[in-house]
């Protein structure tokens, strides 16, 4: 059995592992970073620390990319190892428990972070492993340019 939190970004349905979710909040105040990537465009403050902002819309090609002065109405704070991520989303649906057999291999995407598909409220929902996604988009350390 797996506990999943379904979320939506534009019209795309995604589910993430409930165990990684530390908090669900409202709209995110964040700031863009120079040299940031489309997947990790900036940083936000959360519980007295700075956390990376992940733009799932950019990663999935789902909806408009996150813009500094427009946000999404919900934020998922998720943890992978020592890394915390703030993930702005449009909606967060009720968490659900699904049997492993209900999760079928992904058909609509083939990236490593897409670990399966499940039906939620009549929508094909992509099960995303945010840890794998984070490893795939982890920014490389920059050298200091002279």
């Amino acid at each position, binding site marked *: 059995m797996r506990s999943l939190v379904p979320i939506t970004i534009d019209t795309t349905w995604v589910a993430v592992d409930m165990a990684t979710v530390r908090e669900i909040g409202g709209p995110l105040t964040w*700031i*863009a*970073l120079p040299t940031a990537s489309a997947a*990790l465009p900036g*940083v936000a*403050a959360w519980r*007295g620390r700075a956390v*990376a902002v992940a733009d799932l819309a950019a990663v999935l090609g789902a909806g408009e990319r996150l813009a500094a002065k427009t946000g999404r109405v919900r934020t998922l704070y998720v943890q992978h190892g020592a890394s915390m991520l703030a993930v702005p989303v449009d909606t967060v649906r009720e968490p659900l428990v699904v049997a492993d057999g209900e999760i079928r291999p992904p058909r609509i995407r083939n990236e490593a972070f897409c670990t399966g598909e499940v039906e939620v409220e009549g929508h094909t929902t992509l099960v995303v492993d945010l840890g794998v996604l984070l490893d795939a988009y982890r*920014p490389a350390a920059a050298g200091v340019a002279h």
Partner: protein
Amino acid sequence: MAAVSMVHIQDPRVRWCVRAARVLRIMPAAEWNAAPPVDVLAALGPMPRGGARTRRVVVVEAADRRETALLAAGAIDVGDVDAAAVLPLPELLAGATPQIAAIIVAPDASLSLLVELAAVITPVPWPVPAACARGW
């Protein structure tokens, strides 16, 4: 509260600041004649148009102890920040963004970037091409 004095720049792209203790002076950009000034937000987009004649530079002592000018596009003010509101970048991003040391959370929850002067050494073209200057 422990306070840190900062020089804040209200850049239209992103608000940023440097520690006031590292600022030597603030002067009109047109009067700066040494090495080309640095646009610390160049990666976020071009310098905002307008105000070229009144644009200023924040002159700081860089890591090599030489004076470095940072282009300031926007209003400048000096103010204290609660040290607890200075949040270092997470490890995930710090290595890829060495020119930013931290974010600063204002009392209204808005954010600004604290520039890491040791990493700010990439100049922008200077003097400004005439075609650009006309549009500013």
